[in-house]
């Protein structure tokens, strides 16, 4: 983004600070709403050799969803299981503070579990223009007629690694490494400005 543009949505915001909550870009009903205020508990499960199918089945039973060993998101009211690689599952929960402990108890020697609640920032993106915004950074097919609710991908957006899945018709969720929050939010703001973007990340809003 140019420093002198008359319509730079990031004007005045230091590049090394997360842009504050507020409205950016075009006025009117925002085409995209971005929120990072939900902070789920997250853990990574890596099945030990030969246990991928069994781990998937156990996770499915425990969380009441269909989990398969593939790139997909199994979503229930309080938890989500996302495949990020063969035998690798990210588990998100809104109700299990000791998710790591719960999963260790559940999976025992079948999987390695690591705490990841602080490793990433969960971006919730809603709005009709989300696929158009993400297409400005992603190199995968996010056409809503192709990438359906429950589809997931671990990929790169604007040179930043993300795991993303489509939660429902107009809702998308992205996990981005915590250290990249400022840069990734800048990408969202710059790319979403044409649609109008509402950002809520718990920081002091801007007028």
């Amino acid at each position, binding site marked *: *983004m*140019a420093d002198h543009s008359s319509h730079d949505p990031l004007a005045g915001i230091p*590049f090394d600070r997360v842009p504050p909550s507020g409205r950016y870009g075009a006025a009117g009903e925002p085409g995209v709403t971005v929120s990072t205020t939900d902070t789920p508990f997250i853990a990574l499960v890596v099945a030990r050799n030969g246990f991928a199918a069994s781990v998937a089945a156990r996770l499915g039973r425990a969380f009441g969803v269909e989990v398969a060993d593939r790139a997909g998101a199994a979503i229930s009211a309080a938890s989500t299981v996302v495949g990020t690689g063969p035998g690798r599952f990210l588990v998100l929960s809104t109700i299990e503070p000791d998710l790591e402990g719960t999963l260790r108890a559940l999976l025992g020697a079948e999987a390695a579990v*690591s705490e990841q609640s602080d490793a990433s920032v969960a971006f919730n993106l809603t709005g009709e223009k989300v696929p158009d915004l993400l297409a400005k950074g992603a*190199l995968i097919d996010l056409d809503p*007629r192709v990438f359906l609710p429950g589809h997931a991908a671990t990929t790169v957006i604007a*040179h930043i690694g993300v795991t993303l899945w489509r939660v429902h018709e107009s809702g998308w969720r992205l996990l981005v490494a915590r250290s990249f929050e400022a840069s990734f939010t800048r990408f969202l703001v710059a790319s979403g400005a044409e649609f109008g973007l509402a950002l809520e990340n718990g920081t002091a809003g801007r007028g």
Partner: protein
Amino acid sequence: MSAPNRNRLTSGGLIDRAKSLGFSFDGTSYQGYEGDTLASALLANGVRLVGRSFKYHRPRGIVAAGAEEPNALVELRSGARREPNTRATVTELYDGLVASSQNRWPSLAFDALSLNRFLSPFLGAGFYYKTFMWPAAFWEKLYEPIIRRAAGLGRAAEEADPDHYEKATAFCDLLVIGAGPAGLMAALTAARSGARVILADEDFLPGGGLNAEAGDIDRRPAPAFAAHVVAELTSLPNVRVMRRTTVFGVYDSGTYGALERVSDHLPEPLPFQPRQRLWRLIARRAVLAAGATERPIVFGGNDRPGVMLAGAVGTYVQRHAVLPGQKIALFANNDGAWREMLAAQAAGAPVETIIDVRAEVAPALVAAARAEGLRVLTGAQVIATAGKTLTGLTVATPSGTERIAADTLAVSGGWSPAVHLTCHHGGKPMWDAGLAAFVPGTCPPGLSVAGAARGIFGLGACLKDGAAMGAEAAEALGFTVPAPDVPEVADAAFALTPFWHVEGSKGPAFVDLQNDVTAKDVGIAHKEGFRSVELLKRYTTLGMATDQGRTSNVTGLAIMASLTGASIPETGTTIFRPPYTPVSLGALAGHHRGKDFRPVRLTPTHEWARAQGAVFIETGAWLRAQYFPRKGEKDWLETVSREVTAVRASVGLIDVSTFGKIDLQGADVGAFLDRVYINGFAGLAVGKARYGVMLREDGMVMDDGTTARLSPEHYVMTTTTANAAKVFQHLEFCLQVLWPELDVALSSVSEQWAQIALAGPRARDVLARVADGDVSNAALPFMGAIECTVMGGVKARLFRLSFSGELGYEIAVPARHGAALAAALMQAGEEFGITPYGIEALGVMRIEKGHVSGNELSGQTTAGDLGFGRMASTKKDYIGRVMAARPGLTDPERPCFVGFRPVDRSRRLRAGAHFLKLGAAPTLANDQGYMTSVAYSPHLRHWIGLGLIKRGPERLGERVRAYDPVRGEEIEVEICAPGFIDPEGVRLRG
């Protein structure tokens, strides 16, 4: 100012006469209409002289009506938005457009440098190369300044570009390139099968040639038919119609590059809109329907303003309702151009004369022309032109030479299919003798060609071919394609006799108007032996620059062929490479410019450090605190020395979250670590950490770090910041490829944990106030590693490690607590004067302590070089062991790691200085090694260094020279052991 739109027809055309647009050219104001290009609006206003040529400053006018325009390049806009070399023929007119001619001085009408034609012997073929052979002093002082002023095109803006650009990706089953008759039918046919279709067209009005077509299609005027098809396409959810979008390149795996000019038709982009958007289009199949480009006939004086391509004349008349002139003549070698002129005449254009090189032309066509009152000269050639802008022609006919009055000469030498994109994977076009044109050869995988782009020149045939190609592509992708409904259009026969160059005509005969390359230059290139097309191109510059030889390549080739006596296909064709048309650098960068050039990573304590006054520095992708200056400190050295002294005297803290952290779990982790580290890890006790060194398979050191065992089957490894990703990838290679049988699961936990190093004699006192449990020497001895809680219940990992040489700990907490931990440590350490320090102080302390770091882990050092030889286990195998034993890597003469201090303690040391024996000449043969790291040691109060020198450890106490020719310095230094402080390690065990 003359009468506005004096050359505009009163009806017809695809312009909106109700929407008048004001614009200016070279300071004069004019009016045009919505639907105009800058070129059509200039012609409508009678402006025919639009620029000066590249080398000879000859007056030039508008030649074409599309992207192939070689002449009408203007500077568009002003100030920071000024853009040079913009083709007026593709510049959509907008209200308030400001353009100026370029390469003229002092004015377009009077150009002092048109005298360049007297210099033309010097500026001819090969002038770039010959010029360099002139005396060097002349070049710099005389010729370069003159040529820079004389030869060249527009001026770039001098300010930063104020606009915003972006990049985007879209996927489709079928990409159709070009929305002319073939493209529209291809897109429609495939779209009706349900395939996802993208139709990209460079024009602002899709339709291609249909927009300049006079006849009806399906009982509608041709442009209305095009609009009707576009409307249906636009209404379909599986179709994306991209206007103002040029597909400029074909890349691997069905990836196409395209540039969408989102806002170039506006005075400036609308708020929050990009100026241009670079598209990566990923298509399973593509149909290229880019049409064909008309080519001129080369004759003397063919660059005079008023000489245009015949199809361009037709386009201006039919599409823009503009008469390019009041007395129009045609010079051609084919029937199509005749029909074009007859249609233009029917629309109201004053076409008077047809000159055809062919002796025999279809009698029906001749009769039709004569019936319309046109004069027809067959077997005739234009041999000269007259006028500043064209006023007359000299024509050689079978019965003699005559002069003909004309202000516009429409020229047609035939058509060249736009095969460019078919060549982007190395495919070579093939010569079609019947068409006298190159047609597509081997195409990139998944790309097929339809319509005029593959040499099908009839409108009816193009519609059919487009439908067939669209259907074929969709069916190949598994779609069921309804029978295409293609309107019937009767095509006249294609009739053309190849003709390229009027030999013996008067005045320079330009082959490449944009580069001022004449037929004579081609002759010189031939005479001097530059006969291959690639050499011809480079020697004469034929076919270079913005038009990439659209109108000149085939003609140049044909002239060369006639000189060598070879055929055109034997002579070859130049290879077309991306981009098809120019792409701005801004579009290629998109969002990633300035500070957003690449993403930055911020540490968990970034905001806390900022509040402490930190100065930040980029280290790889990370932004880290470099140092924390205080008021009154005069430079960074004073600050860093204060930080180091504070740590050594009391206590300090630094964020080391940037280290890579890898979680390893499984029954075989110990065995695995044994195979990747040179030293043994199988015996590491739970609750302990160990320093390890990892080699590459070639025996060089890859990385170092510590690994701690948290429980019997759970370990956590740290890597250097720089190598975090590389080490993870390496470990995955070992596990997935080399030893898949091992039970080890890897997870990156780098982002999960904030990690703060606490160092100094008071470190334990501070830690005890923050930790919830016992951190005594007994509970957490040197190299201890425990899981516990801090700050009243925050999960934590404590490692007793030291990089500084002081009593040290690394405290890891979940990242969201990182800043709180820093604040808690500051508060707990307040009474000890706890000091935040940055990576500069960290660097000074590791040099004082003699630890290796990135400068020493250069990829060219072995474990032995760095003093880790004895660490290497002899009881096991590990990655790199076999290759590290090679004689060259165990040679005692290898430069090895030691410390250095200046003999004159007041002297400053420099990293990068090379070591020489005292009295030895500074030659490569005498090179003994080099200084890898230096620092001012506040502890010793002089500069110290680390480095690699031959047989270093055997030479402690010896004096050598540190020779730094880059800075012109030479210092006598003394070799010493690398530990400058507490070499016995008492402090860190305390």
